[in-house]
């Protein structure tokens, strides 16, 4: 096969690759999404640096130690880390073509994501009830924005995952749905990585100082 012929056949399926990479379109979308994650990571990095600059500026109001709930954020961390694992299992079963198992593990991931959001919301509500609002100090502005931005990402991810789940349920695992499952999985793992940094930079350092 000449180079040209190879190129002309690229739109057809290539069975040597995993399903999500088997069409040119799928491969491009996954690569493009990796690049998008770079931009999203930098967005978080900017807000992280803003938090780092402002987190001591408590304006005589609530301090990190004062408002962080160790049990709460430990539970959130464990739940989100587990959900990343279950999301990975989903991708594994997608590659094996096991639709039922894929749907099952994505459902578990969604439930874990929902409970993470529930815990985070209850933490936020408790903070606000104790007078720790976004308007109180620069520290709280940065805290709610950074953690809340991650929470919004997770919420968006839950909706997104649900939409992909419906598509898999109705249309099955194919060259169109497989990249979608894979990409939403990448997104979910990325949020997990961001959370590890939030856990360290916000909660652990906050408890230590």
């Amino acid at each position, binding site marked *: 096969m000449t180079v*040209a012929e190879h190129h002309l056949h690229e739109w057809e399926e290539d069975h040597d690759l995993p399903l999500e990479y088997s069409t040119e379109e799928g491969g491009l979308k996954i690569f*493009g999404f990796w*690049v998008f994650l770079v931009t999203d990571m930098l967005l978080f990095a900017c807000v992280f640096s803003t938090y780092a600059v402002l987190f001591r500026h408590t304006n005589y109001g609530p301090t990190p130690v004062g408002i962080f709930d160790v049990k709460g954020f430990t539970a959130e961390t464990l739940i989100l880390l587990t959900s990343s694992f279950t999301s990975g299992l989903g991708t594994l079963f997608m590659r094996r073509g096991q639709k039922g198992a894929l749907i099952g593990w994505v459902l578990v991931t969604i439930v874990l994501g929902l409970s993470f959001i529930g815990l985070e919301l209850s933490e936020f509500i408790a903070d606000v009830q104790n007078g720790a609002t976004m308007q109180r100090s620069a520290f709280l502005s940065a805290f709610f*924005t950074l953690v809340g931005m991650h929470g919004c990402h997770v919420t968006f991810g839950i909706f997104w995952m649900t939409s992909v789940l419906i598509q898999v349920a109705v249309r099955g695992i194919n060259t169109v749905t497989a990249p979608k499952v894979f990409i939403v999985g990448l997104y979910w793992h990325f949020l997990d990585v961001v959370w590890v940094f939030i856990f360290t930079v916000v909660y652990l350092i906050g408890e230590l100082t």
Partner: protein
Amino acid sequence: MPASVTNFATHFFVLGDPLIYGADASIVLVTLAILFVLTYFKKWGWLWREWLTTVDHKKIGIMYLIAALLMFFRGGVDAILMRTQLVWPGMHFLQSEHYNEIFTTHGTIMILFMAMPFIFAMFNIAVPLQIGARDVAFPYLNAISFWMFFFGAMLLNLSFVIGGSPDAGWVSYPPLAGPEYSIGPGENFYLLALQISGIGSMGTGINFFVTILKMRAPGMTLMRMPLFCWSVLAASILIILAFPALTAALALLLFDRLAGSHFFTMLAGGNPMMYINLFWVWGHPEVYIVVLPAFGIFSEVVATFSRKRTFGYASMVASLMTIVVLSYLVWAHHFFTMGAGPGVNSFFALASMIIGIPTGVKVFNWLFTMYRGRIRMTAPMLWTVGFIPNFVIGGATGVMLASAPTDYQYHNSYFLIAHFHQVLIGGVVYGMLAGMYYWWPKMFGHMLNERWARHAFWWFNIGFYVCFMPQYLVGLMGMTRRIYDYPGDMGWNTLNLVSTIGAYMMGIGFILLVLDVVYSIFYGERDKTGDPWDGRTLEWSLPSPAPHYNFARIPIVTARDAWWIMKEARRGDLTDVSTTEGVESVRVTQSKQTAPQSLKQSGPLQPIHMPKDSGRPFVLSVCFFIFGWGLVFQWYWMAIPGFLGILASLLARSFEKETSYHIPVEEIEKTEAAYGRL
């Protein structure tokens, strides 16, 4: 009229200034005229099918170009108004508040809504054709990028007559731009317009990064790419790495304004310097985002019109990439005077000066490309040759400004104004105009008139020096930027008068350029060959304008300057060339070294896989516009439906089944036959 309605109207519409009433009238009249023309000539369907729903990179490029020229006009009018106010001390042409609004919108529009769409126009028009691709990697995203830019630009432009324009400068520094000192919707317009169009820019950056890395024709290795593609790759990397900082800065300032948070306020522990850092972490790479593609265009133009391959290709690539890295290490030179201390200032001063080295390498390479070349002084070449002295002066004054101790003297003076106009106009605008003249036949199938082009160039170029050289002097004499009036006994009067004359000369140059476009639509020489300049890269192997699938057969590339090498082969460097078929074939070879057996077309035609047009990018962007408008006025009843509309559009896309189709071979044959290329 009930009092509440009157009260609302006086706050909603900007009242009391005859210039604004003039703008109101012209907006209404132009809108009515457009509606009338579209209805009278029954063009609504055409507009929707051919333009609003298109995902074709060539059409998107044309729309970017039109938008950029319109915004160039708007920003240029702002400039003329400012120069008219400053022509002599004690002028009463503009009120101080109005002047503040105008310098703010001038800067914002020229950088974000003129320079950015202009480079994106060039990306879209040239890159897929140069790398032998049929579209960009994500055509649907490409349409979203355009419409997000478009509605962002609309949002900012409407602020002029509705609600009031932003007036805290194009950099919008807090605390001035914060909730205490900028009351009213003006700054919200700025923040949301930039945020919405910024999302579009980020999409373009990702799109072209992936396109260039993944969609090149077989055989086109990175080091065989045209230099314009390299410059777009460099700019895309910068967009990907820089725009998130702007997104963050704008979002946090918006929270301060709308939600009462304390990121950049003076109270409750906020730190305005954080905004300034975030802004310039984006802002400095941004100037390279707009100037690197211009460098790419100059490289193409110089090579084509000197009939030589670019001198020092590898060093051109290396200097582009060096600039990409260095551009992240210089942002603090925008605020040396804020007291970061000698250690920090020295670092940023040195890093800023070092950028002069790769830039200098490029200038010498362009000169050496011209050296002993057979130069044709066409319109693109005129703008290129005009650029070089401009950029050398702009670069030299840049090194002066980069020196931290002396910067305390130049900071925020007209010296700075003259410097960055010299690099942004002399670099970006000259580059984009060179690109526009160069690729115009590829876009529209006809040439721009050279005679008009020369007049436009000389008016603009001479006007430029008349306008900005006095500003260096008046800056050294102490005149600071952003003042709407000045005392008459400072010795600035004559220099300001001369500067204003220059601004009007540039205005005449722009009008001549527009007249050239209008004239050439009717009388311009038609480009029947597809290769009017005797070009070197693959876009010139196609007919003008290119068919919507671009390449009937994907070309195979074996060397740099692919199309030139192939033409050389046809001219007789190779023995057994089938002349009739050779025209179409883009199987190219480095002539003398590896002569091919023949230049036959590479196999039969295949059905072509193409993306389907979609109206959803337009609808999505309208939803963003509604969402943004709601936030500007804090009308949450409006913002929430807009937000839901955004989500609905995203969901609808996710569930869409048929996003592409195949063009059958018969249709390709028909199209190619119509071009006489079968």
